[in-house]
């Protein structure tokens, strides 16, 4: 295992052109991976190759370029399906995880739920899996319930049986928290939801970059994620839906591509999944997502997560020694490589500005999880998030830069 881990970190950075640049005269120590990851050369080249060699609109053309573009686009769908353990027709391309979740809210829940029904979320949701439900609850009169978290930022599973009763039609929860790093035991929640016949949507935006998920084994009804958080380009998200769940879903967007037959006053829809992809899709970025998946598949995912957890653990120990308060679970194997902290003396924005002068990129703020921050009694945290190309040198640079924060504010 140790040997395998040594192949991660610095030796991968050569595959990522951005790491050859400097920030404030220092090498880039990129610890904002939960916001978006960097892109390997293979992804950047795939984008350029598409536009240079096969640019054409998909699905409609008879000519060679259109045929090749369609083949590559649908090839990416097959690759995503394989990655998830799904069937290609269960993979809908969206622009990001947020749009995927909105499709479930507006395309499924809005038509299947009625006044008085309940949706269960968790207290650690990102706004992406919160605001669509607040808007829908307001529109049709739904009850929103929240699975509470404990002091370590873990779901209080003992509340599930009481929260998920016969009124609950949907449980929508985040797989890994972008603030706390907590990996949620979604299997236990899904089991409870099945007992009352509720559907389950998993927000996998922060988990899929790190953990291999088989949707068939997990048995969720919907799963959403974004390509750009896992080496892929921006502008590509995925909504996985079980076929019966997608059959219950209506298209939210109408237009070209998604139709079968149109008259002046009627429309019938194309097959699933194309009926959910109105208009010209983000062809180039979808195609360039394929080498990102290939890159991740070339690594052993267990080794990768172990590597990220080792880095997190080293960072957490150093932060605590320096007097910072780290959020989230104590056990390293209960979290992805996301480490958020606060301090009495330095505000996250000041911390991030000082770290930036050392070339260290971290996130400061509420991380699009304001209700969670409010629950924790915080306005903001500083967050470092690790990925496959980070290593102990990066952790050391973070700690070095934090010493400067202490010297200004401590």
């Amino acid at each position, binding site marked *: 295992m140790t040997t395998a881990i040594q192949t991660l970190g610095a030796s991968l950075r050569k595959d990522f052109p951005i790491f050859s640049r400097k920030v*404030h005269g220092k090498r880039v120590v990129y610890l904002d991976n939960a916001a978006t990851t960097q892109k390997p050369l293979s992804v950047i080249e795939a984008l350029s190759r598409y536009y240079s060699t096969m640019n054409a609109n998909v699905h409609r053309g008879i000519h060679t370029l259109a045929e090749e573009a369609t083949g590559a686009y649908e090839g990416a769908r097959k690759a995503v399906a394989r990655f998830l353990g799904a069937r290609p027709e269960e993979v809908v391309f969206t622009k990001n995880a947020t749009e995927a979740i909105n499709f479930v809210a507006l395309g499924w829940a809005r038509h299947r739920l009625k006044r008085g029904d309940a949706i269960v979320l968790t207290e650690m949701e990102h706004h992406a899996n919160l605001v669509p439900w607040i808007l829908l609850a307001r529109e049709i009169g739904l009850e929103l319930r929240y699975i509470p978290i404990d002091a370590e930022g873990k779901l209080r599973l003992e509340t599930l049986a009481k929260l998920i009763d016969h009124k609950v039609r949907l449980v929508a929860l985040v797989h890994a928290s972008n603030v706390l790093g907590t990996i949620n035991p979604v299997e236990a929640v899904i089991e409870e939801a099945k007992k009352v016949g509720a559907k389950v949507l998993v927000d996998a935006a922060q988990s899929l970059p790190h953990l291999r998920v088989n949707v068939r084994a997990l048995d969720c009804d919907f799963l959403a994620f974004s390509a750009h958080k896992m080496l892929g380009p921006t502008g590509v998200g995925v909504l996985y839906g079980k076929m019966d769940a997608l059959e219950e879903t209506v298209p939210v967007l109408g237009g070209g591509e998604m139709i079968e037959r149109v008259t002046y006053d009627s429309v019938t829809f194309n097959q699933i999944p194309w009926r959910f992809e109105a208009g010209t899709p983000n062809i180039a970025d979808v195609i360039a997502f394929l080498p990102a998946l290939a890159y991740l598949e070339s690594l052993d995912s267990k080794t990768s997560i172990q590597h990220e957890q080792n880095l997190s653990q080293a960072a957490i120990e150093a932060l605590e020694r320096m007097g910072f308060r780290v959020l989230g679970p104590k056990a390293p194997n209960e979290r992805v490589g996301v480490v958020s902290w606060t301090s009495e003396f330095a*505000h996250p*924005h*000041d911390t991030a*500005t000082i770290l930036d002068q050392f070339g260290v990129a971290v996130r400061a*703020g*509420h991380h699009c999880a304001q209700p969670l921050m409010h629950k924790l009694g915080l306005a903001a945290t500083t967050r470092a998030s690790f990925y496959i190309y980070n290593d102990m040198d990066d952790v050391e640079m973070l700690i070095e830069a934090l010493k400067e924060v202490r010297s*200004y*504010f401590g």
Partner: protein
Amino acid sequence: MAELNSLYREVILDHFKCPRGKKMIECPDVTFEGYNPVCGDEVKIAIKIQDGFIQDVAVNSIGCAISVAAGSMLAELLPGKSLAEAEELGKAFEGLLKGEIEGLPEDIGDLESLEGVSRFPVRVKCAMLAWKTIQHAVGLLKEGTPSKERISTEDATTEASRSEAGAEKHNGANHVC
């Protein structure tokens, strides 16, 4: 780390650690709350005026060193000024943050130390929060009737946050005595 020293000068850190104007004012003429949704920073302003001159200013901030220090410096500088003079000072401060250091008024005081912020574009909003909030409060005082209670650095107050602000009004966030 010369850049950092130009941003975090001693005088700024002093205002951050011991903010002036951090207090309650009894029966203020206007109270106003500013908010930066990007980082969650908040500032609550209360102003008391007498015969057209600012008599007292309370600035209660939750935020970074730059936003707290800017609010503290304004709390120190504004008492004794007319509303027009306050606006003039604010204009000079805005110019300073854009890197315009020519023709600064003599009474700009410690605010001058925030000049280094102009080299950190993402931090300009932090320095502006307290002033933007005071500017709205001063505007309300000139109009006579406060109509808005909460502003955002993004200038995109949504329906939801407006109704939230409306609720705060009933909780006494916007007393006019």
